[in-house]
């Protein structure tokens, strides 16, 4: 199972956001996308999901042209976890997750008992079993994000695209989501995930892709490709990458070099 962008140009009519993107996502790997705000990550994702047509090049899924495929075919192969938003009507968490089963239903069908069971299992998997009947618009942002992940799990696709799934979460839930991502990859699901936190690439990514100023660069494993120079180019700040020991194993962390509090300490000395 493979999702692949070949020489992809993406954007909207009359406004090219990026060109020449080459990108692959295979089953069982986590590919992490890093890029500053407004760098075109979401536009790239929408093109990779077939939601907007490419300006040039191709997106292939299992060798098929994604943009010529029916929505239901795509939806059985690639799941999408958007950034949690409020929604418009007071659906229950169960209803929202159940909607992930739509890909497996014919146009006139409604979800069966089996679909409900699969939705319930997905809710259980992300740890929201206690909120099955809660109203989606009235749970916390973190819980909504987990519900959207459960929806993608109910969709039961070999590949997942997650757009900043940790952006609206507290510290604990961020870790919880990253653990879930790692677990899914362990089960053979390919995950393409965008994030604002370069630390997260060291925690879960097999490969890192930088999206910046209209170019898409695959820099390979974060331990090899992600260094202070790259991060400075990306975010325009000085970053120090250190190795610390976490639970007996070395882990790299990114530390912004010039944060106010730190310089205040220096000046006192």
């Amino acid at each position, binding site marked *: 199972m493979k999702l692949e962008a070949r020489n992809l140009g993406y954007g909207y009519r009359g406004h090219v956001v990026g060109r020449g993107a080459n990108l692959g996502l295979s089953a069982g790997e986590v590919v992490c996308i890093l890029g500053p705000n407004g760098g075109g990550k979401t536009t790239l994702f929408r093109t990779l999901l077939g939601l907007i047509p490419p300006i040039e090049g191709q997106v292939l899924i299992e060798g098929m042209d994604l943009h010529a495929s029916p929505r239901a075919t795509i*939806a059985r192969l690639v799941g*999408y976890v958007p950034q949690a938003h409020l929604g418009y*009507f007071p659906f229950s968490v169960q209803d929202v997750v159940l909607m*992930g089963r739509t890909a497996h239903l014919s146009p*006139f069908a409604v979800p069966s008992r089996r679909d409900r069971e699969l939705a319930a299992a997905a809710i259980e998997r992300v740890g929201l079993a206690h909120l099955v009947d809660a109203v989606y618009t009235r749970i916390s942002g973190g819980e909504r994000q987990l519900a959207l992940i459960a929806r993608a799990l109910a*969709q039961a696709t070999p590949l997942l695209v997650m757009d900043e799934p940790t952006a609206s979460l507290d510290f604990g839930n961020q870790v919880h989501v990253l653990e879930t991502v790692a677990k899914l990859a362990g089960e053979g699901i390919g995950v393409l995930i965008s994030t604002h936190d370069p630390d997260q690439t060291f925690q879960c990514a097999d490969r890192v892709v930088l999206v910046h100023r209209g170019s898409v660069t695959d820099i390979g494993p974060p331990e090899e490709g992600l260094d202070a120079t790259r991060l400075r180019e990306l975010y325009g700040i000085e970053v120090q990458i250190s190795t610390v020991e976490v639970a007996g194993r070395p882990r790299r962390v990114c530390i912004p070099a010039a944060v106010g509090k730190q310089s205040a300490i220096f000046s006192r000395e």
Partner: protein
Amino acid sequence: MAIALAVFGLGCLVVLAFAVGRFPVSPGDFAKVIWDWLSGGTSEVPATVQTVILNVRGPRILAAIVVGAALAGAGAAYQSLFRNPLVSPDILGVSSGAALGAVLGIFFSLDVVFIQGLAFIGGLAAVATAYFIASRMRGHDPILVLVLAGVVIGALLGAGVALIKYLADPYNQLPAITYWLLGSLAAATRADFLSVLPAAAIGIAVLWLLRWRISVLALGDDEAASVGVETGRIRVAVIAAATLMTAAVVSISGIIGWVGLLIPHFARLMVGPDFTRLFPVTALLGAAFMLSVDTVARTAGRIELPLGVLTAVIGTPLFLWLLATARRSWQ
């Protein structure tokens, strides 16, 4: 459960609606007449009672049920589709288009059948125009553009209606036009009911078949597409079905506001936003509401009250109450 309750309530209302009026009919006579009509036997019930039940009240009650169910059902579909609880069947210019068609028919003194036909065509043409304009404008939020195009088209058609009222003969045509614009089922005949039944049934059938997809569309286009919904095509089908049923019933009832806005809210309070449950409950509530209002319209005063006025008088306070207390319906 909610559906069973709504069906039972509607049944009681039907019996009540047959009973009351200038010529009271007892439930016993009503049952006898219906039985004799079904079995084809001659009836000992007086002929006037038979006429009242079969030719006067019967068609009117059936028309009220179809009109209410279609307007409310279409309203629920539009609200889910446009992800906006303040949308109603007239949002895309259906009502204005139908009004202009009917008013033109009255102005040219056409036969009733042609007036209805023009109303129907006007409603469909208005939506088609709004949809065409919206599809020409790329690069904007498609739903917003569609709704705005509908509002603008509606305003233009409203100007057309005003012009014809201005030009119309003030003694014959103007009262007829005003009467139609206020909405009424007083003139509904068996033929009227039968003429709108197919279009209303087709619209309801399409919405019913697509009920789960309509639910999913409430997620937003990107997410609905990402779980496998052909969003553009389903939207066209739903708009066509909802417009078809609105235009059809408006062609016999005239303009009746509020039903398509208000009833889906109440239904959503009862069963939640899932369209598979929302749609049947909305249609039944709409039918019950329309039948109640029409029964009041023909019995309350010495003259028939216009339906559009009654629904507005009932609808405004109800909607304000909803707005103040029951935010649950959309949050």
